[in-house]
């Protein structure tokens, strides 16, 4: 694996037995972020075996956890290398680490540093974090980097339906599906904080309606005199697609609780299914009546 660092104790500069000990994951980016934030200092870095996973995710899974920390302190013989009994851990490792258990298990006292390594120089001045250093944000930049992942995840599910719609029904309608998926995977992450309501599903429904109105109006003309039914069918079929993708974006955010997401699933998946099926029925009816009228 190209993204892992060998677990163990590392020296940065020329640390003494009184130097600080920082704890990190063995994911290259986590380790490098810490290393560059501490550049020019003489410290120890204790790298845990988190299977190459970053701090927060590893903490959530428990691999960056009390057990591994205590074990790694023992393996490296840290207690014989430093005179003090203090460790500085990244704040986001806390979901996996219980500081009272670490003290009991190793004698070392845990101090939680800031969320982001680049705040460490300021933090270390007084060993005190500002409220901002403790907060996890989800700025545009972080949301945009996720777009390719969202697209790659959605793509395999969308190829067959798009091709089927295109070849069997119409390429205009296939393009509408592409648009709905684009809204859910690209526009949604960008617009997330701007969309009204707190629930992701309703945010997605609102975005879906906004995005689908122009093609719904454009495409409806072909179904005269059933334009209204055709436009309604377009909205009913494609907005749940955007909403579903929006709901799935919960897993990519750093703030949705399991309780809330579960509630959303039970609340809105039935609504999405009902919209989709009633839209499909309406589309078939409008299409059939249109064809009959033509004949």
């Amino acid at each position, binding site marked *: 694996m190209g993204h892992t660092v060998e677990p163990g104790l590392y020296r940065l500069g020329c640390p003494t037995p009184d130097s600080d000990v920082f704890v990190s994951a063995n*994911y290259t980016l986590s380790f490098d972020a810490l290393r560059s934030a501490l550049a020019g200092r003489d410290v120890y870095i204790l790298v845990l075996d988190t299977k190459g996973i970053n701090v927060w995710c590893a903490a959530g899974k428990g691999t960056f956890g009390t057990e591994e920390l205590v074990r790694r302190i023992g393996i490296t013989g840290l207690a014989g290398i430093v005179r003090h009994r203090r460790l500085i851990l990244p704040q986001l490792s806390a979901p996996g680490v219980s500081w009272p258990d670490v003290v009991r298990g190793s004698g070392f006292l845990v101090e939680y540093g800031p969320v982001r390594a680049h705040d460490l120089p300021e933090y270390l001045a007084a060993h005190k974090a500002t409220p901002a250093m*403790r907060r996890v944000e989800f700025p545009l930049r972080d949301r945009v980097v996720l777009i390719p*992942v969202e697209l790659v995840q959605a793509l395999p599910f969308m190829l067959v339906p798009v091709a089927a719609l295109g070849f069997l029904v119409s390429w205009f309608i296939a393009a509408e599906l592409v648009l709905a998926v684009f809204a859910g995977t690209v526009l949604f992450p960008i617009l997330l904080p701007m969309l009204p309501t707190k629930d992701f599903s309703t945010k997605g429904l609102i975005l879906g309606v906004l995005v689908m109105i122009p093609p719904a109006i454009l495409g409806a003309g072909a179904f005269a005199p059933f334009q209204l039914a055709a436009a309604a069918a377009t909205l009913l079929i494609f907005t749940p697609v955007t909403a579903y993708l929006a709901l799935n974006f919960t*897993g990519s955010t750093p703030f949705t609780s399991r309780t*809330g997401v579960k509630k959303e699933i039970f609340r809105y998946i039935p609504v999405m299914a009902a919209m989709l099926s009633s839209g499909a029925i309406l589309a078939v009816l409008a299409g059939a009546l249109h064809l009959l009228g033509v004949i």
Partner: protein
Amino acid sequence: MFDSYRENTLNYYPERCINCKRCTQVCPHAVFAEGEKRAELVRSSECMECGACALNCPTQAIEVQSGVGCAWAMIGAAIRGRDMDSCSCGGSEGSCCGGGGEKETTPCCEVK
């Protein structure tokens, strides 16, 4: 309306708090604030149930059922007939993740 996140499994028993301030240090959403004599639960609905506060509270003054709020994982678990509450990230099955390393400070379900 349209806010499924107002309630969660976070419970705080202030009478047990010894004001060690750990919860205010570990919470990524400032759910707890430092108080005069004990920590104060100020933004309960912002809790994402990561479990850091409860795990680091030395007097069990905080309880929360921790888990990852990922619809992809939970729907996947429901479809496979597994427990929606025990699915998590990064594993093999019942997982929403691709595994591997991820970007720092993003949550569990995305691989960079």
